[in-house]
């Protein structure tokens, strides 16, 4: 990095907020060290930093809590990490409007705690809430079990402020829950992985905290049988907040049902609302599931949510790769069952968990002993991806060592839509400085 740039950055954000050299170790991704990490304290400072980087053609990596820092391909060129940790205030919370405006660097955990103090929450429950920031969760479209009833980031974000690649401050959407003025910019930035702009503020819809909540865990002898069970729940009058499906390996590592037989599964169904509705639904659930092979229903405490959100993240000691799938809900159980078989056939272990009602599946691939050959890992991942595609879905390599990533693309081929994405990228970031090369279609 040119010394002159460092001086200008120090002038923009204060010398204490520019890290270089040995201080950069927390920001090393896949062995690559950025030139500097810069921590602006205001929107204007973010704009100044991006403007300086743009002038020099230096890449910028927006950084929330670093929870998803290794998702995607690593930056092709070194550059600046732009950390948002100093921008972590709750700016506005009007309970009667069911909306809040928050700085992007606030952690989800802190945000939810502040809202919860006034009886509300942002109905999004991704893993790692104490580390992941609101901006990072939006930029990666992270979600958790209760997406089933309450939707994803795209359904909750009503306004967004971003600093674009030219250092301009742009606002999209607004502060009202219903709004069709102009293009829906919040949708553009959700899941854009910091490639179109730096999210600095967000306005989201809130919900009241439920009066009462209960999670029911039901064991099945065979994973295969759970497809019918999920379908029966979805076709019933029940209004579950979540339908989680875990295979035996994922269930035992999440501490849910250590006694689940290999080849078996645990279905966790959540309900919330007035107490009598929750009670009625729990009884109805048992009535539906018992004839379908559901056994040993147990009630879980609410703290199980965070373990479900992270499942099967910690399932195996020697994790070789993590893949996420988006498939239609009716194919979830089959995807898990067949996917585990594909891994087994190559002598590898896997653990699977899904937000079954929304078709979001997550798998961990692992070997017990010595790390496996990257080629063998990549072969399994390739077969998994083919399986997802055959069912009209797609798969993303959420985590793997570089040796694996260089053999199988992180992102699936988006087809003709990829060209539109590239056009959007070149319109919004013509100098290609925001997370260059990290995202889909070479973006």
């Amino acid at each position, binding site marked *: 990095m040119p010394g002159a740039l460092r001086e200008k950055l120090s002038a923009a954000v204060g010398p204490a907020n520019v890290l270089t050299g040995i201080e950069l170790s927390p920001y090393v991704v896949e062995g690559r060290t950025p030139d500097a990490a810069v921590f602006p304290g205001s929107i204007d400072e973010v704009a100044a930093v991006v403007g300086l980087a743009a002038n020099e053609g230096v890449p910028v990596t927006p950084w929330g809590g670093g929870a998803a820092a290794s998702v995607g391909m690593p930056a092709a060129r070194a550059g600046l990490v732009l950390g948002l940790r100093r921008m972590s205030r709750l700016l506005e919370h009007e309970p009667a409007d069911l909306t809040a405006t928050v700085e992007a660097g606030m952690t989800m955990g802190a945000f939810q705690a502040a809202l919860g103090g006034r009886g509300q929450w942002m109905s999004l429950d991704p893993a790692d809430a104490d580390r992941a920031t609101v901006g990072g969760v939006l930029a990666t479209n992270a979600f958790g079990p209760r997406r089933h009833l309450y939707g994803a980031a795209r359904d909750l974000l009503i306004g967004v402020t971003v600093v674009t690649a030219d250092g301009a401050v742009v606002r999209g959407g607004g502060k009202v829950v*219903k709004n069709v003025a102009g293009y829906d910019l919040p949708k553009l930035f959700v*899941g854009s992985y910091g490639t179109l702009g730096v999210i600095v503020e967000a306005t989201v819809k809130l919900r*009241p905290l439920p009066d009462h909540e209960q999670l029911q865990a039901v064991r099945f002898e065979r994973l295969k049988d759970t497809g019918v069970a999920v379908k029966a729940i979805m076709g019933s009058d029940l209004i579950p907040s979540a339908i989680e499906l875990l295979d035996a390996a994922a269930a035992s590592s999440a501490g849910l049902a250590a006694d689940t037989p290999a080849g078996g599964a645990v279905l966790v169904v959540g309900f919330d609302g007035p107490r009598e509705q929750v009670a009625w639904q729990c009884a109805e659930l048992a009535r539906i599931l018992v004839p379908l092979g559901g056994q040993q229903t147990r009630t879980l405490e609410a703290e199980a949510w965070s373990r479900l959100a992270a499942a099967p993240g910690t399932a195996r000691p020697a994790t070789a790769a993590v893949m996420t799938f988006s498939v239609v809900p009716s194919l979830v159980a089959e995807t898990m069952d067949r996917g585990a078989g594909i891994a087994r056939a190559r002598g590898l272990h896997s653990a699977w968990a899904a937000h079954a009602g929304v078709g979001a599946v997550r798998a961990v691939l692992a070997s017990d002993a010595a790390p496996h050959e990257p080629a063998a890992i990549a072969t399994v991942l390739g077969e998994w991806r083919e399986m997802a595609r055959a069912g009209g879905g797609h798969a993303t390599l959420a985590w793997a060592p570089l040796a694996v990533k260089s053999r199988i693309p992180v992102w699936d081929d988006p087809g003709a839509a990829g060209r539109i994405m590239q056009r959007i990228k070149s319109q919004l970031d013509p100098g290609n400085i925001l997370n260059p090369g990290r995202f889909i279609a070479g973006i």
Partner: protein
Amino acid sequence: MATLTDSRKRELRRELETIVGPDAVLSDPDELLVYESDGLTLFRALADFVVFPTSTEHVSAVVKLANRERLPFVARGAGTGLSGGCLPAEGGVVISLMRMNRVLEVDYDNQLAVVEPGLVNLHLSWKVGPRGYYYAPDPSSQQACTIGGNIANNSGGPHTLKYGVTTNHVLGLQVVMPDGEIVWLGGRTRDAQGYDLAGVFVGSEGTFGIATKIVVRILKKPQAVKTVLAVFDQIDRASAAVSAVIARGLVPAAMEMIDHLTIQAVEDAFNCGYPRDADAALLIELDGLAVGMEGQLERIVEACRDAGARETRTAKSESERQLLWKGRKSAFGAYGRVSPAYMVMDGVIPRTKLPYVLSRVNEIVAAHGLRVGNVFHAGDGNLHPNILYDPRKPGEEERVVAAGAEIMKVCAEVGGSISGEHGIGLEKSDFMPFIFSAADLTLMQRLKNAFNPTGLCNPGKIFPTKKSCVEVGPVAYRPHAIEEKGLAQRF
């Protein structure tokens, strides 16, 4: 835009006929008149051609021809839009999707349907109703408007409060891009790969291309529904009740406000049993599980009482429920009896600003010597002031338009928006700077460039511009055909 010579027009007509068939092209000025405006009859513009494709390939071929000829083109659904969105530029091609109106597939296991864009909104709910499902977004025009138009405008309805607007129910779209290329944005799964292009397309008002297939979610019908009318002696108390219900952690399916003038008009015309002397009423609907519903209803009634409701009436049967909704839904027809014409405004404000904004609306309209009836989606803060006027009186329509602009300014000042569901179209493009900065608009323009670089696809909409190509009032108000038939009302 250069005007086409008659002989060139004949040649192009023949070419269009070879694409879509001889019975699917209009170019006779008399026939084109039907397509010169939408539900907002203030604006009018004549196209050179209207075509009625029946397949994605037809649409693509027509779009490619238009590109070759540098002719502007615009998609049109039922033409019920209220912001001039589907108006042609002066000249060019209107692509009507009304013959592409099939339900292509219903996948009950995955709770989705694949439909063509010209399908009438309500027809989807009819199709899936027998299996216990429905399509949630319910604009009041749902007996006529198309899913394609709904996608373009990101339409809402009374039940938006709980279930969200169109965008929350769209999974994917097949689109003919402005250059004629056929592309899928999103698909059948909840998440697409990469940028959320389907999410960006919804609400783009026909400027990003033409949707030719749409994958939407369908929902299970709720087990039970309860409807209650809360009556107030002061409209401010009704506004306070809206916030009070929310503050108690209750999320009704719908929460609609009907003001004094509207109640009078509705009672004069239809006798729905609303108390005539009330200053305002809130129509509140709950849906969901049958068990526990009574308890929730009690909490809502209590919140209304505490906010100052003088009485609450709960529908005891489906027919009583329908009667309560009739009061809400027949407001338009009722205005027609007390005024020769009216114009509906569409703005959004934070719920907590309702009392202030409603009083400002009344002041503004009164200052212009006009009357206003308010009937709107109070739970969402989505206002619909209906300004009553007489188009035959010189200058009155201009005063309505001026009052409308002032109301939009007030919405903007309190942190709201200039449209909750009707869109910007031609009508409000010059109001965009009320809520967006130059930088905001530049980014939107860049996004548009990525989809529609030539600008031939639905030109002149959304962005601030001189309305030179289009005839602007004074034009007598004409009700939309579906209103005349009494099928719908304007909100």
